[in-house]
């Protein structure tokens, strides 16, 4: 038995060492990629952003707001940390990490829409996007509330298990065999490339904005936090194709909620869901996502409006 235990221990030590080594190689490699899943997280962790204007929200944030246009019109430095597929609780986690590693912004453009106040969810969409940064103490403490298991957070390599392409990309990047810049984003902005075909709109019977109390409360705490640290916030609802807009339910209740928050925290609310951009499919890839052309028109409009509001003065 003694011999068995000694050999088993030795083998386990070797196994754990290999796991740590692989974890280090893959994580380091991924921290050097410019692939869209990891790029903005890399910039945040490396304290590279320090933006004057920070754009926050879901996929309608990262694909609608062009920092290039905002920078050129407003003559500032902006960055888009939008995170696709998740409501405010996940967006807030990313913001917390941003604040921890970067200088606080002067202004936050907070994208608001029907999905913002959905109930808290785990990170399910592209959950590998946080894998390389799991040793950051904020993420280590928080991710357990976002659907990551203790084993994923505390065991070496375990979280990468089954993500074969991520493993390969990390190793290749680390060894310098290949540089990954698949769909690179410009300062977090990644416009939609798809072309309008209307099929998704036909399948859409209704859009129901969810207004979860816990999410709203978290949002209000975040606004109070921004106010405390003198960070201006402007809430923006970006264009939706007008036919889809007609399928929005509880419109009044949702608008009342936003306007109520806007007044309570003295935060401007810019609603573009009735803008002329919404009338033409040429600006959209799908009903709720602008394409590149639409996003650029919208970004210009927003930049001009912010300019007119003198919000950074």
């Amino acid at each position, binding site marked *: *038995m003694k011999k068995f235990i000694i050999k088993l221990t030795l083998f386990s030590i070797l*196994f754990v060492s*290999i796991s740590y080594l*692989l974890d280090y190689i893959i994580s380091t490699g991924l921290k050097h990629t410019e692939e869209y899943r990891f790029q903005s997280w890399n910039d945040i962790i490396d304290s590279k952003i320090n933006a004057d204007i920070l754009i926050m929200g879901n996929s309608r944030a990262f694909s609608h707001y062009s920092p290039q246009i905002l920078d050129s019109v407003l003559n500032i430095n902006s960055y888009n940390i939008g995170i696709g597929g998740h409501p405010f609780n996940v967006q807030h986690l990313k913001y917390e990490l941003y604040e921890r590693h970067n200088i606080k912004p002067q202004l936050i453009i907070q994208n608001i829409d029907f999905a913002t106040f959905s109930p808290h969810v785990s990170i399910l969409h592209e959950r590998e996007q946080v894998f390389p940064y799991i040793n950051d103490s904020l993420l280590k403490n928080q991710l357990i509330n976002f659907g990551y298991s203790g084993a994923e957070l505390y*065991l070496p*390599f375990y979280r990468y298990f*089954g993500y*074969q*392409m991520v493993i390969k990309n990390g190793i290749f990047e680390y060894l310098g065999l290949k540089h990954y810049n698949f769909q690179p984003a410009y300062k977090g902005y990644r416009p939609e490339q798809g072309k309008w075909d209307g099929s998704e709109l036909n399948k859409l019977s209704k859009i129901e904005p969810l207004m979860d109390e816990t999410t709203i409360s978290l949002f209000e705490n975040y606004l109070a936090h921004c106010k405390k640290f003198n960070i201006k916030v402007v809430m923006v609802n970006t264009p939706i194709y007008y036919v889809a807009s007609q399928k929005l339910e509880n419109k009044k209740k949702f608008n009342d909620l936003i306007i109520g928050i806007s007044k309570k925290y003295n935060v401007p609310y810019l609603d573009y869901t009735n803008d002329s951009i919404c009338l033409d499919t040429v600006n959209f890839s799908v009903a709720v996502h602008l394409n590149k052309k639409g996003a650029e028109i919208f970004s210009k409009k927003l930049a001009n409006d912010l300019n007119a509001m003198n919000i950074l003065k």
Partner: protein
Amino acid sequence: MFFNSIDFAIFFPIVFILYWFVTKGNLRLQNILLLVSSYFFYACWDWRFMFLLIFSTLLDYFTGIKIHEAINQRKKMFWLWLSIGVNLGFLGVFKYYNFFAASFADGLSLLGFKANFGTLQVILPVGISFYTFHGLSYVIDLYKNRIKPERNFIDYSLFVSFFPLLVAGPIERATHLLPQILKKREFDYSRAVDGLRQILWGLFKKIVIADNCATYVNQIFGSYETQSGSTLLLGAILFAFQIYCDFSGYSDIALGTARLFGIELLRNFAFPYFSRDIAEFWRRWHISLTTWFRDYLYIPLGGSRGGKWQAIRNTFIIFLVSGFWHGANWTFLAWGTFHALLFLPLLLLQRNRKNTNSVAENRILPNLKELIQMISTFLLVVFGWIFFRAETIGKALDYIARLFEKSLFTIPKVEGANGFYLCLLSIILTEWVQRSKKYGLQIDMISSQAIRWLIYLSIVVLILFFGGKSETFIYFQF
């Protein structure tokens, strides 16, 4: 709690340490510990089904004693049929009621009658087909006076519920497992190492081969209407490897785990895809089930002793029941029928026991005849798997019809599978080289420890690199 889960990686070492270090070789304590662990293991799936397992155990325990104590044949028979009836009754309700109700209603509607028997909203208790068969073999063996009843309830319960085999076999026999449960077990270094090796090999087959195959198979079967004939053929071949590596991988882990507790379970697989005919395939595939049906169904029905027609009838019965055992779906019956049709000619021509040795024994490579026999047998088995994998008979037939289109002679397209084919090739070659052993990684003949460890670590690295997204074990649904 899956064998390939982090939960099991915590559970198993704890049980192992308690078993060898805390019980200090006390057999009674060891058996109690294994039983409690087994119930905990089972409760992790769904604690409510514990009651069913315990009821089934109690039923067979008491009917077993009653069979033994019965003063005449009629009473013996009564207790035997009580046990069989109740056991199969539970299996019928949980596994087959909905199928029969729906099929009967469909049949009546074809005759112009309207019927609705309602369906039960029940979940199939995991492992029910396996532990029911454990219990049945016990009472039948008692009835046939092959064994004496086990009067210690803990020992008997452990025979039914021993966690490595509880949810997906191998289907054990009281004659094989009970004596081991009753005997003092000593730690044996080489057996323990052998157990670990077999676990590692099982994990490799399950995690690297079966789980990756599952990804491609799901893609192909999920969109078979748009795939070329060659891709459909590849999809069926990949499913053949998926189900083999999934189930034999599970069995390897079960056997290895049991061996670490000093218990030998029945071998379940013996490199079935190197079979030269269907009869040989069935001697090498899911051996514990095949032999169970042979001993408790085929032989009691008269086997092939009563002439040709009886042999044909019994062959069909055994294959249909075997198909139906897998699940309540016409596809499994079609799969069973297909194999019966393949098996019958061999039986009638008395060629079913022609290939009882290992292929190409004492040679490195097979000769041309053996190669052709192996490939043709494999392709027939692959063909049968289409019925097994398809959701309905209609879809299976449609899949087969599309497979034989002109596009069969094009290059199959499966995205991102190139690296995986190397893994697949590696397992085929390894199993070929090791075909005379009990499992692929039985490398105790390599004297250099450094080389053995290098092989183990390479497999670990392959598991880490090529591990597929965690999938459940296919046979857990049966």
